[in-house]
């Protein structure tokens, strides 16, 4: 399976997806390929998913719309919670890009590990998110292992 980090290190907490996947990769989980798409648009992700039809976890920063600081969401829930519209690729929404991937044959399960930002300023994570990074990596590893073995689970929080 693949764990795909999205984000932009030049926009504060928007780099958290990249940092988490880098940290996860350093733990050397068997059978898990870590992929980074820095500054990439949604279509880049779509092309990547189509090209590698494997169960995937996408790790990214996202405004979650409630007081949650982190969420583990299935693709259907992403649409229901209206989160897929938050990423723009020159007018092309994330949800459309996922639809393109599915339409072109990406058939594997997909999950999202989303982290709410505290600040999008600067070229480093906010102090608050930086402090939480180790526990977030633990949570991500827990989710990835669970996903790999059970291919299930959704909902937000831990």
């Amino acid at each position, binding site marked *: 399976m693949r764990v795909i980090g999205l984000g*932009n290190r*030049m926009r504060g907490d928007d780099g958290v997806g990249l940092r988490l996947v880098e940290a996860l990769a350093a733990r050397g989980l068997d059978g898990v390929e870590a992929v980074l798409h*820095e*500054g*990439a*648009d949604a*279509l*880049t992700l*779509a*092309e990547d998913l*189509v090209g590698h039809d494997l169960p995937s976890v996408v790790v990214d920063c996202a405004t979650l719309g409630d007081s949650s600081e982190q969420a583990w969401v299935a693709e259907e829930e992403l649409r229901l919670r209206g989160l897929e519209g938050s990423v*723009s*690729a*020159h*007018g*092309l929404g994330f949800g*459309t890009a996922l*639809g*393109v991937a599915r*339409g*072109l044959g990406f058939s594997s399960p997909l999950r999202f590990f989303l982290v709410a930002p505290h600040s999008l300023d600067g070229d480093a994570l906010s102090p608050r998110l930086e402090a939480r990074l180790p526990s977030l990596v633990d949570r991500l590893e827990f989710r990835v292992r669970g996903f790999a073995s059970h291919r299930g689970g959704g909902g937000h929080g831990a």
Partner: protein
Amino acid sequence: MGAGKSFNIKIDHVTRVEGHGSIRVNTRDGKVEEVKLAIVEANRFFENFVRGMLPHDVPQTVSRICGICCVGHQLAATKAVEDAQGIEPSAQTVLLRKALNESQFLQSHALHVFFLAVPDFVGAKSVLPLVKTHPDVVRKALALKKLANDYTAVFGGRTLHPMSNTLKGWRKLPDLREVEKVRDRLRQSLPEILSTVAVVKSLKLPAYERETEYVSLRHPDEYALYDGEVYSSDLKSGVPVSEYRGVTNEFTVAHSTTKWSRWHRDSYMVGALARVNNSFDQLHPEARSVAAELGLKVPCFNPYLNTVAQLVEMVHCTHNSIAMLERILGDGLTPEDIGYVPKAGRGFGATEVPRGILFHEYAFGADGRCTDANAIIPTSQNINNVEQDMKAFVPQMLPSMSQDELALHMEMLLRAYDPCISCSVHMLDVEFV
């Protein structure tokens, strides 16, 4: 004509464009009362906060005006800053910049043609229906976009806000092994691009024309995308880039936070159609063949065909990029001294970006720091022309269209220009008294 039709069209957020624009069309009893394209994006203030920066920091900063047009802003700014600093780049550096520039054309045009514009012409609200009806075309478009992104990354160091280009040259030269791979992939992509021509040919494009002034760079030796004079289809000649303010003649309108432009007429058009109109004979022969096959004959006054012009340019840029990369592979690359001493000066730079001609101007004081900046983006130059098109076309469309059809055609018209609205919003000149 259109008797009795009273429409109130209010599209608050046009979809499948970058940024936010609103369209208002009001008709009463068949008479057009109002047609407005309102831009409500906030000012970007880049021209303000680059003041105080050293010359080499300016291009890297202003490339962040936009994530789509970042290469164009960086190159136009680099040219302007070098002009101000009296720096003449080497032939190697110019060639590398041209390659970097054309990588963004391929990326941007692939995105716009296949994912943003084509859905309009098959009656779809998004690209998703095309995934079912034309999966091969969408697959090829995705692959083309990835190739273009990788092309940018090889030359620029990364896809978004490339870092390799700087004043006088390259911080880190491209790896020639990677250049060779990109060259090979570009060769393989040509048949793929050409195979999409049949699909585009089958589209029913609206047939509305309004002659306007077409403005683009023009160069005696090549299809101008990087260098040239500012050419007008009305003048049939060009003016130096340093005289760009006399081209754009920016002015404000109440319903738009972006300034408008005009030159010899009430408005002018920039972008792919303007370039193709002005420099058709300099396109690669295969690009000219594609234009002929798609019914694009110059001069073309139908703005909906801007999308077709973009596909023509994709063919041209692919051929041209292959030729440039082969030159680079043949000549090799030599590390260059990129040291310089900041000094006072004022400079001008222009380059074509996918949406049209982009102007940058910078001034530096005795301490070598930026004192003044100005950037005029192609979309802001086009917005006036889009509204003039709308005003001309609505009376023609009114007799035969329902309100929904008319609204859709107005959205399609704006989308055909491939606007980048966010980066078009220009600092208003404010004088405190």
